[in-house]
């Protein structure tokens, strides 16, 4: 199997120079914070706070949740404005299975595409064939099987789904723990048991075998969905996340109103610092003290199953 690993143990078929480049960019984002932004002004705030990338959006998940309706790819004008405004990588979301939106995003040159459950799905069976693109993709997952199905389709990065737009970290934690637990369970299996494991996880045998051998995903494993404070970021990092996506938690005061600019700036800086120093309680205390408040949020436990975004994706 040596030919499908690069020196990092990452998934990289010897024929797949493009896949190596995709995973390579994901490697560069490790240890950092990727922030949702809805304007060039917010993108600049994010870059100045030390974000490693921004996610260009029309509305953040909390707004999408509050306003309802069909959520689609952001307007191209908005994405271009954000690309013009910052020097760090710019990501954008396409709907699950909407390969034409993905083609558009690749055409305008975004650096990473998030095939995201936050938008309204465009296909109830299929995800985008991500091998068909030169732009790397990130996809959400709640367990190892889902993560590996996305990797099989060509995802270069996995993130936990959590429950976006809530400011409640509970499902980001649940999904990260689940993925880590699933991976650990594979490492103790015998070779002959991996075939049944592949069936159980509904994932390709080759990828199951790779995880059993290395004890980790074949691509970087990030966390998203409800992270709102420096301590939240440190929590998911300690649970195994290699980097953190923060959506509504930085720029929103609640589901409808934006936070004060100064408050958002402080929060952005503090979350960036906490993500790097995730295992240093002294620095985490400083980061937490700097923040004057957090998004009001929405408790996931009180939500209707039908309102959850995480169940989108197959």
């Amino acid at each position, binding site marked *: 199997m040596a030919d499908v690993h*690069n020196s*990092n143990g990452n998934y990289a078929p010897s024929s797949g120079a493009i896949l190596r480049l995709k995973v390579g960019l994901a490697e560069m984002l490790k240890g*950092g914070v990727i922030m949702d932004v809805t304007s060039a002004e917010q993108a600049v705030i994010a870059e100045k706070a030390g974000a490693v990338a921004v996610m260009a959006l029309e509305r953040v998940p909390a707004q999408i949740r509050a306003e309802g309706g069909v959520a689609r790819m952001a307007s191209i004008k908005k994405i271009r404005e954000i690309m013009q405004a910052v020097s760090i990588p710019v990501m954008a979301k396409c709907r699950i299975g909407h390969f034409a939106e993905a083609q558009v995003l690749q055409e305008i040159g975004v650096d990473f595409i998030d095939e995201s459950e936050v938008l309204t799905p465009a296909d109830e069976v299929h995800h985008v064939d991500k091998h068909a693109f030169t732009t790397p993709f990130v996809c959400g997952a709640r367990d190892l099987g889902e993560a590996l199905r996305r990797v099989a389709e060509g995802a270069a990065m996995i993130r936990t789904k959590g429950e976006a737009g809530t400011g409640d970290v509970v499902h980001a934690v649940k999904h990260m723990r689940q993925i880590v637990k699933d991976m650990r369970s594979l490492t103790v299996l015998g070779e002959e048991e991996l075939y049944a494991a592949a069936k159980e996880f509904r994932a390709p045998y080759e990828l199951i075998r790779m995880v059993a051998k290395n004890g980790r995903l074949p691509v970087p494993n990030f966390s998203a969905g409800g992270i709102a404070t420096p301590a939240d970021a440190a929590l998911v990092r300690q649970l195994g996340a290699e980097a953190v996506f923060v959506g509504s938690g930085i720029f929103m005061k609640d589901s409808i109103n934006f936070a004060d600019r100064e408050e958002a700036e402080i929060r952005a800086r503090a979350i960036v610092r906490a993500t790097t120093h995730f295992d240093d309680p002294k620095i985490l205390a400083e980061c937490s003290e700097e923040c004057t408040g957090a998004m009001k949020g929405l408790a996931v436990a009180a939500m209707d199953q039908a309102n959850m975004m995480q169940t989108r994706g197959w």
Partner: protein
Amino acid sequence: MPNTTQAQGTATPRIGVLAIQGDYDAHAQALREAGAEPVLVRKPEELAGVDGLIIPGGESTTFLKFLERDGFLGSLQEFVRSKPTFGTCAGCILLATEVRHPAQASLGVLDATVERNAYGRQIDSTIQTGETRLPGGPLEMVYIRAPRVARIGDGVRVLAERDGFPVLVEQGHIMAATFHPELSEDRRVHRRFVELVRDWMARASESNRQSDSKTS
């Protein structure tokens, strides 16, 4: 002073990897394969115990945010002026005397002008194989949103080029690459840096011994 000279000839170099953010894990693994012991460095005081340093790929703007705090920039500047340091991609940008596109602060120890994202966005990232002055034939070079070295000073030695622009350079105890040798299997570039660190350690222990014998 205890005499550690004998041990240092064969000692495994402890090489720091700046781990604010970026592909520091890949560098740590590459260093192990090249015969060094990697040490992740996240705080200025952690520079004290290492014989050399790698500044990895990642986002140079993010690195600078951390360096602006707690006197990190000053400590790092002092380190890179005297001890072997290797920067790849974002690390190369930080080492340069001048940064463009956009202009930003840097450590200024590599006599070069570096342009950020000079080849375009991720879609323009590429893997190429090119000639190098390192022994052992052509070298694979992984470029990811790569910067370009637009100008170098007289003291800078070019070890590899892409389209006439330097991509792997040395200047005294400083090494820099605009590509990512840590993402290839070929360990020649990291072995070269570990050698640089070993030479530096040998010289440092030699000068220690000389100053010891003078004082005794």
